[in-house]
């Protein structure tokens, strides 16, 4: 099964909030194949972001295992996790999270800026190429506040691709965008998935972006169930944020 890029087994994440313990994930299982384009949906507070953090080597689980490329990452120390993030993961955030003082180019270069294996010329060339791929060839030297929301998210996508990652994790990537721009961003991500074969794991509340044959995982009560767009529609989950 070497085409499984990431696999979580019996994944648990508990948060201590003073006296009470919040059980965000209570034994979640997920297995994602290389090159797939999958969605994660679920009500607010159901643990979607928590799952993304654990899959993306940003956090340590309370229990269970996460295997990336067959390697157990759940017990790694902070430095090893940094290396996993640098080499294997790309993040796309709801709020873009670009560095305001830096140009689009520098923002895209950021993940590999401290990596001595790649020269600055090579890194710059790669970043420019990616900015062109995401349609920002004419905005290379703009800073984030000179860019529209959609353009910022394109920069973020280019940044997520700079390290040629195994998986790209996008947590509500269109949450701050209008539906037309959101659709463009999804189009771009699908293109990267098809043309570059990149694995995308996307958290979204907007079911309108999900196609009928996409794989969809539904998180509820801290566990994951595989579902589909049809079933979601049947259960009445619409393109609105659910408040629990």
């Amino acid at each position, binding site marked *: 099964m070497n085409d499984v890029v990431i696999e979580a087994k019996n994944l648990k994440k508990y948060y201590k909030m003073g006296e009470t313990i919040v059980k965000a994930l209570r034994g979640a299982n997920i297995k994602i194949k290389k090159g797939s384009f999958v969605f994660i949906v679920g009500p607010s507070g159901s643990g979607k972001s928590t799952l993304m953090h654990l899959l993306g080597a940003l956090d340590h689980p309370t229990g269970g295992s996460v295997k990336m490329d067959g390697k157990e990452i759940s017990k790694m120390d902070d430095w090893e996790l940094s290396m996993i*993030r*640098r*080499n294997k993961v790309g993040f796309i*955030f709801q709020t873009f*999270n*670009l560095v305001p*003082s830096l140009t689009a180019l520098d923002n895209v270069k950021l993940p590999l*800026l401290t990596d001595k294996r790649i020269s600055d010329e090579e890194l710059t060339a790669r970043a420019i190429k990616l900015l062109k791929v995401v349609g920002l060839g004419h905005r290379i030297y703009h800073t984030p506040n000179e860019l529209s929301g959609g353009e910022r998210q394109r920069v973020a996508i280019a940044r997520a691709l700079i390290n040629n990652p195994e998986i790209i994790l996008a947590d509500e990537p269109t949450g701050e965008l209008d539906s037309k721009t959101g659709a463009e961003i999804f189009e771009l991500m699908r293109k990267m998935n098809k043309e570059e074969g990149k694995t995308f794991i996307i958290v979204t509340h907007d079911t309108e972006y999900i196609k009928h044959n996409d794989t969809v995982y539904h998180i509820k009560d801290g566990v994951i169930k595989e579902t589909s767009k049809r079933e979601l529609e049947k259960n009445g989950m619409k393109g609105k944020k659910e408040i629990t």
Partner: protein
Amino acid sequence: MLRIAMKNLMRNKSRSILALVGLVLGVTTIIALISITVGIDNYVTNTVSKIKGIIVYEKDVSFLPLSRIDEQTIEKIEKIDGVRDVAPRVFVTVMRIDDKGGGISGFKEMIRVYGIDPIRESKTRKGQHPLGSELLRGRWLALGDKYAVILDENIADDYKKTVGSKIKLNDYTFKVVGITKEMGGMIPGSATIPLDIAREMAGIKQNEVTALLVEPDHPEETERIADLIEMQIDGVDAKPTEEYAKQIATVLNYIDALFWIVSSIAVFVAGIGILNTMLMSVLERTKEFGVLKAVGWTEEDIIVLVLSESFLLGVIGAIIGTLSGAIVVEIAKHYLGIPMAISTNLVIYAWCFSIIVGVLGGIYPAWRASKLDPIEAIGVG
């Protein structure tokens, strides 16, 4: 990395400038105080203590080259019992030789030039060495010499002059008539010219001189004669040259102590300034450091980034501080009229100070930034 660090500093310019104030003040004080102290020290050891006898100067003058004495005082002092000879001196500071020099840190073109009265001088020195040093070539100054100069061998060698050459001191061209042995000391050269020209160059009135050198009949009476001069002549101070040098040395010791106090205060203030600035800047950029960590930066990478920023503050502080220190030294040079220079060692010391303080002030903020939890820092729900 340094480029990114620089950009980060430029983001909040006023805060960066605030952080620099402490550093710049520190570096400026270090450079200015030391250069001025060393300058005065050299000047005094070279001018005064080399000559045995009594130095007479304007009462309560703050600094010897600023002293003005009426020429008639010479005769008055000559009449005092136990005084053998009195010789006038006019001090001139030359900063340009053959139109070169005048830069910030040039010992090279700065020499001490004395105006002397050849007749009185030869009496005082018993017709031997007007500056206490041996004549190598040519002759001493004589009555009627106008644009004539005696150089010491240092200057003669540096500017390739021999007896008969021309040399331009500030705006005046002189003919070299004699060359003496060097006098030693830190300031590498001296020259002697006739009194009248010296007055003109120093901008002193025709009947005035800077100071008088008095030689007593008996060396053991030096102190008594000095006291006598002070009592009998109005408006002058008279000190045995040795005592005068000692007095200056005491003042210099105070300046030295002051230097260390100011230095340590500067370290403290500058350090706190950098610490505060960097800490504020780090806390303000919590989210940003979270992003850096999320995209794969290690704790070490972040420490390096923050330390680069404080290191840059140190370097900028050093540059500005060195420049402003140099300006202070220039001003001091102008007002005191004595040669001063900023030595390379001093600049190195001040730079080390600034950079070390900068980096030290960045350590805690860097550590704080590196320990930020990326998830909390980014704050996504």
